[in-house]
């Protein structure tokens, strides 16, 4: 019996070591990357597209021979628009699937939920969506726009080109609109706009009855000063908002609306004829006239087998993030997180608007800001393009963060360095 047990134990050990060997073998064969986007639930509407983009980028890279001579393998999980589930799935990707890096998240809530996981397990997340700033983590590369790469240039455009003097800041009631509006209000007041000329309004998620809000905007706009609406309205609430604007006859010539969350994808569900002339600020539009963009759109249509699928800004951010990672890994010669984090700062890759985006020491990237007007065909006409703008993680317009900077290069390696006190950590003034 003891012999039997021993044989059994030996066999078990043999099997286990065999599978372990095989596991190691497989890991050497391919490099795994995680794709952490909601494929069901409320956010599926936006995030499914990004999952498709990631799969396309991986396929394209493999056609070119992969990375470090190995093929890439995308591990797709579905966190189902559930913020705590994002953290669980992230842990699973890093510890169980041993992915080299993760591309994912959309809402700030999901990013905040996974951040401690990435810091604890020391892995790398590429976050492709515009966000409110006020954060810089060693383990996250922010390839979407910070407020100074989207909101502030948009407000500048309205102020200079349209002569806007009165502002409605209309947003959905959560962290991104609230922080952005706080920054915008401080910025506007620093430009001499009076408090009485700023109206801040919040509505719940998925708000659909915009009658009162729109008529409020209308009466705020009839005070004899040129008025504009800066909209941080999120997701599904946009369609009824724009429909109500169109029906109440608010034209872009009278009260223009500039939006930070409305792109080609969101417009696909609306008849845009009444909206011509309303604006959006992004770092990329599908209508960008550049050979690299034409190529990207062609690949995208071929990959999705649908030549009506639109492209949008977070897709460009995913594209930049993926290519930056590939370049950093090749420079480091390994997928080891610490080495990649060291080599990724300063990496410069082409963006889709015809220029280059560079990963800065604060783990944000440089990119131009484009202001576009909605056209009748659901696309945007670019009316202004700024030169490259560096993503500013800690806003200069908030008293709490104006003295903070972030620099993840050695020896500083700090996400919230206070230039006044000369110490790492804590809030400013």
């Amino acid at each position: 019996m003891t012999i039997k047990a021993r044989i059994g134990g030996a066999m078990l050990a043999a099997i286990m070591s065999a599978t372990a060997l095989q596991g190691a073998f497989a890991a050497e064969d391919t490099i795994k990357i995680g794709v952490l986007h909601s494929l069901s639930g409320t956010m599926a509407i936006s995030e499914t597209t990004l999952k498709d983009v990631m799969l396309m980028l991986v396929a394209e890279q493999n056609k070119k021979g992969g990375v470090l001579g190995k093929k890439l393998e995308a591990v797709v999980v579905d966190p189902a628009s559930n913020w705590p589930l994002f953290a669980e799935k992230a842990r699973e990707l890093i510890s169980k699937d041993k992915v080299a890096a993760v591309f994912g998240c959309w809402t700030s809530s999901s990013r905040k939920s996974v951040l401690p996981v990435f810091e604890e397990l020391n892995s790398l997340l590429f976050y492709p969506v515009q966000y409110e700033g006020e954060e810089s983590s060693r383990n996250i590369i922010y390839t979407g726009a910070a407020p100074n790469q989207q909101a502030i240039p948009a407000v500048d455009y309205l102020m200079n080109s349209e002569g806007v003097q009165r502002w409605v800041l209309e947003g959905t009631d959560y962290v991104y609109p609230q922080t952005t509006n706080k920054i915008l209000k401080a910025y506007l007041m620093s430009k001499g706009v009076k408090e009485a000329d700023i109206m801040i309004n919040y509505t719940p998620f998925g708000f659909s009855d915009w009658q009162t809000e729109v008529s409020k905007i209308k009466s705020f706009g009839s005070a004899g000063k040129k008025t504009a609406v800066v909209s941080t309205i999120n997701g599904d609430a946009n369609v009824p908002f724009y429909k109500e604007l169109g029906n109440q006859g608010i034209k872009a010539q009278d009260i223009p609306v500039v939006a930070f969350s409305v792109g080609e994808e969101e417009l696909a569900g609306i008849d845009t004829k009444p909206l011509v002339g309303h604006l959006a600020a992004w770092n990329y539009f599908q209508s960008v006239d550049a050979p690299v963009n034409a190529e990207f759109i062609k690949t995208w249509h071929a990959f999705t087998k649908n030549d009506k699928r639109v492209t949008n800004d977070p897709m460009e951010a995913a594209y930049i993030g993926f290519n930056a990672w590939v370049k950093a890994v090749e420079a480091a010669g390994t997928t080891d997180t610490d080495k990649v984090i060291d080599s990724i700062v300063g990496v410069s890759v082409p963006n889709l608007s015809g220029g280059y985006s560079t990963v800065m020491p604060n783990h944000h990237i440089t990119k131009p800001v484009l202001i576009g007007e909605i056209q009748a065909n659901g696309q945007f006409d670019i009316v202004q393009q700024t030169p490259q703008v560096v993503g500013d993680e800690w806003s200069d317009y908030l008293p709490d963060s104006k003295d903070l900077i972030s620099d993840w290069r050695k020896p500083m390696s700090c996400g919230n360095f206070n230039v006044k006190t000369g110490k790492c950590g804590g809030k400013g003034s």
Partner: protein
Amino acid sequence: MKMSAILLKGRRMYLRPVRILAILLGLILGFATAASSAADDPAALIKALGTANFEQAEAIIADLGKTGDTRIVPALEAFAAGDLYVRKSDSQVFIAKAAGSGFTLIDPVTGASAGEAPKSAITKIKINNSLRRAISSAQGGLTLLSPDKVVRLQAADSVLKSPSAENLELLEAALAKETDRAVKLRMEQARAVSLLSSDRPVDQKRAAIATLQSLGGRDAIGILMTAAPTLDPALKGDLDAAIKKIEGTLALWDAAQNIWYGLSLGSVLLLAAIGLSITFGVMGIINMAHGEMVMLGAYSTFVVQEIIRTKFPGAFDYSLAIALPVAFVVTGAAGLIIERGVIRFLYGRPLETLLATWGVSLVLQQLVRSIFGPTNREVGNPSWMSGSFPLGGMQVTWNRMWIVLFSLTIFLGLLLLMKRSFFGLMMRAVTQNRRMASSMGIRTPWVDAFTFALGSGIAGIAGVALSQIDNVSPNLGQSYIIDSFMVVVFGGVGNLWGTLVGALTLGVLNKFLEPWVGAVLGKILVLVLIILFIQKRPRGLFALKGRAIEA
């Protein structure tokens, strides 16, 4: 650290030098074009548009307006619509219409055909909002003397919105010839607006203020406030009195407008809840898949419209009428399947029913997501549901008005069915006393199934209407399920009238709280009030009297 400090500084300056240079250039070039176009040649001016930037284009359009040449109106219209293109080879400007893979070119001044061009040979001339404003002002001035009454009225409207001294003279010339009363009135108002910003004598301006006071509305206040800083101090009293008077009338209309908004929100709630008032209210089934029935109805509308768009584009205005029966049949059938397949095994077990129907709702959502994709689908508004019309001092949007009428029609229809038809009689008999009804020869399982199908079908019809004001996405139903239960419970379970009164009360209450405390807090307050109300009256507004309905 040093590097980031430099970057910090650098990025604040990214705009300034470029902008100043552009403005200077614009000014210089603007003067140049103004000087060279003294010949008033519209063809040359339009050609200059091809190479102008936004600032220059605005100056050119003002010059075009000054030519007084009505031949250029089509070119201006095309520019505003984004149909003005410049040919790359010789920088000639054309009106271009898409034809097949290329474009047909039309001469912008003579209107003669100028051949065809492939898409790559021409570039669209870009336009922004300030250009659009300049165009509508120039266009207004040019079309004031048009033989068409509607065009003249539009012209007067656009001049009203963009006052200028040139327009004032044009208006006075047009006024002298105008015979139509409505157009004349609008022109007089437009004249008053332009007059306020001109250098005319004080008493003419005083008369203008009086005219604007009679115009009334938010727009008039806006115009008066714009004019205020440049106005003669002697007129300040008149101005303030006029604004006060207009605001006084507006306050009354605002209250009326609020009631209307409340009714329209209430009718949306009624639409969403009315199907539930049958499945939950009458049958007592906690149907969490109710919202998904609404969603299926909206998707039926989408499919119907898609077919009409591709096969019979002329019939688009009737798409909703066709979608109504389709949605009713589709969701009714879905309801029948759910009742026969799941719910009939769970009568009398509310908790299991809740879980099962919630599961069904998730299955339906994911099913729709797999078939139609996760993104929003475009459901168009037929022309009779777009825009708004003025009613006294308030604007009533057509889609809201039709939805109010539609939901009341559904409500009355359902009431008739319940109270006057044989099926309604059986339905009420079964819900009031199942065993007694059964022993009278009513096939209760059959009645259950069709009652549930009816409730689902009505939810589907509601989906057709809601597709006109909300997103058509797989999540559509979720946003209505809570509100629906709220309405039914508040109104009193099992009572259709309760649902009506409940929905309208909640709608009006919500809309009166919203301007006062904001949308977020308003919604919370409504919920708190309902909780307090249910504490006092657990059976809702209209509680059913007599024996409780037990399954």
